[in-house]
């Protein structure tokens, strides 16, 4: 693999060459070449990821950390190498700070459950933002209800920016902060550095939901000083059903296990069980070995292109998208960030057309977008809208995709008006 530091200059990232790595992009939908703009829901997978997973099952499939035999050792090596790849990707201090989960939701549920169990007291508060995905609201509500704690919310302004002027005041009585780095419904990059710095001044730990960030921006957990950070493999060109929880060693060591089973124990008797060290304490049962290997291949793919290059290419496409789409009559951007403060997502409405109608007519033209509340109902309530149409970008999207989207919207608007 090419080292991420020795990449081509940004202008030479050839999107047309990248597109060839994604076989699904060649297919047609309703007789039209596919325009896939639902990347915030899940990205497509490059050949390199598919091949890595295929090779695992073809050549070294075995259970990990258990067997005395050759295949088990090879599978364990590949699986643990994947953990190392993830640790380097987000610049974790230690590889054992990387916990494998089923995705961002499970990672957040894990922290909410075990942090809540150990530290939440009646009257405590969990601070989230007004632009969270349901996955970063509901797990906290579940544990808060159990512990007699409550949720508190960092408000959002008319443009979609979090209002953090009152943060010091908001942080009083808060036991933990949980915020997303990039909003999945609006696409704005949130001021997580400021939020983390403010929380730490009050001695409060912070969980960052980076599900919509890691595929678009360089995420460095040490530089952010995040206490916990979660993301999913499948939004980062990797397989579904796999994700990461990063936690600072000092926090993870203080927390009780999440689920019981094989792998997470040291000794078991009917009187007492002692638990394994990090990261295995939080990984009960046979893990998704192919998932880990697939994610590592996806990270290698992304690093090979270079996240800085990806960010530049996506920024340029995003500028083109905003310029093109905002020319459309009655086009309403929901979340008014410029391209520099936006990662991957454009959420919009056209006049009073219902997003569901617009999405359906786009679909018939081979254009895949998401419609609805994007698992962020409080955000839609904030703007008094039933939902939005969300177009979301990945590195393989090109100007043709955006131009097809614009033409598709115009056609739909004409039909639905």
């Amino acid at each position, binding site marked *: 693999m090419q080292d991420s530091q020795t990449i081509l200059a940004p202008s030479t990232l050839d999107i047309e060459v990248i597109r060839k790595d994604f076989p699904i992009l060649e297919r047609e939908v309703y007789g039209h070449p596919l325009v896939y703009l639902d990347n915030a829901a899940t990205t497509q997978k490059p050949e390199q990821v598919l091949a890595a997973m295929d090779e695992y099952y073809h050549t070294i499939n075995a259970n990990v950390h258990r067997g005395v035999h050759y295949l088990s050792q090879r599978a364990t090596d590949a699986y643990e190498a994947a953990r190392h790849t993830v640790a380097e990707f987000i610049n974790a201090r230690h590889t054992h700070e990387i916990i494998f989960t089923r995705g961002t939701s499970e990672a957040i549920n894990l922290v909410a459950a075990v942090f809540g169990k150990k530290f939440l007291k009646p009257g405590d508060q969990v601070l989230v933002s007004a632009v969270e995905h349901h996955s970063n609201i509901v797990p906290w509500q579940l544990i808060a209800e159990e512990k007699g704690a409550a949720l508190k919310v960092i408000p959002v302004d008319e443009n979609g920016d979090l209002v953090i002027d009152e943060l010091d005041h908001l942080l009083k009585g808060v036991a933990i902060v949980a915020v997303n780095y990039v909003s999945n419904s609006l696409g704005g990059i949130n001021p997580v550095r400021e939020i983390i710095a403010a929380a730490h001044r009050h001695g409060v730990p912070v969980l960052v939901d980076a599900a919509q960030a890691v595929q678009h921006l360089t995420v460095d957990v040490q530089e952010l000083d995040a206490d916990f950070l979660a993301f999913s493999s499948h939004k980062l060109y990797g397989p579904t059903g796999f994700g990461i929880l990063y936690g600072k060693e000092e926090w993870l060591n203080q927390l009780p296990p999440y689920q019981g089973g094989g792998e997470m124990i040291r000794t078991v008797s009917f009187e007492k069980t002692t638990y394994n060290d990090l990261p295995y304490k939080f990984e009960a049962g046979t893990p998704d070995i192919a998932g880990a290997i697939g994610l590592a291949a996806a990270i290698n793919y992304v690093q090979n292109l270079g996240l800085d290059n990806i960010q530049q290419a996506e920024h340029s496409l995003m500028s083109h998208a905003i310029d093109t789409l905002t020319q459309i009559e009655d086009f309403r951007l929901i979340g008014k960030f410029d391209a520099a403060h936006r990662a991957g997502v454009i959420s919009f409405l056209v006049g009073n057309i*219902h997003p*569901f*109608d617009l*999405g*359906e007519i786009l679909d*018939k033209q081979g254009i895949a977008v998401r419609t*609805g509340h994007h698992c962020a109902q409080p955000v839609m309530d904030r703007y008094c809208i*039933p939902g939005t149409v969300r177009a979301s970008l990945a590195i393989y999207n090109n100007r043709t995709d955006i131009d097809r989207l614009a033409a598709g919207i115009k056609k739909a608007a004409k*039909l639905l008006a």
Partner: protein
Amino acid sequence: MTIQEEQDEIIADFEFLGNNWDDKYEYIIQLGKELPLIDPQYKKEENLIKGCQSRVWLHTDFKDGKLLFTADSDAVITKGLIALLIKVLSGHTPKEIIDANITFIDAIGLTSHLSPTRSNGLLSMLKQIKLYAVALQSKSLHS
């Protein structure tokens, strides 16, 4: 017209439109615009149909032994689909509605064209209409 005749008419209309999805949608949207609109007082929580991505209100009247439906939705395509259902089922007795075999949705190729959430919504509406009919039927049997 009987329920079956109404269905046959819709099927014939869609056959006339051919395989052009633009025309089919244009037709559905036009029907939506002609939908007998619900009186605003009935656009309340109890009349909302669950299982739709868009909001759908359905109101039922029972006059001279026949069920009459009015409805509305915040989405235009949804309105058109409700209009089709109402065209077929409104103005019939509960027994006719219960016994009706609704085939036009499949016959006009809507299920393969509509997104799954949309056709599920359509089925929810149909289920709701049938439930009203069943409720009225059992009431009249017991009274």
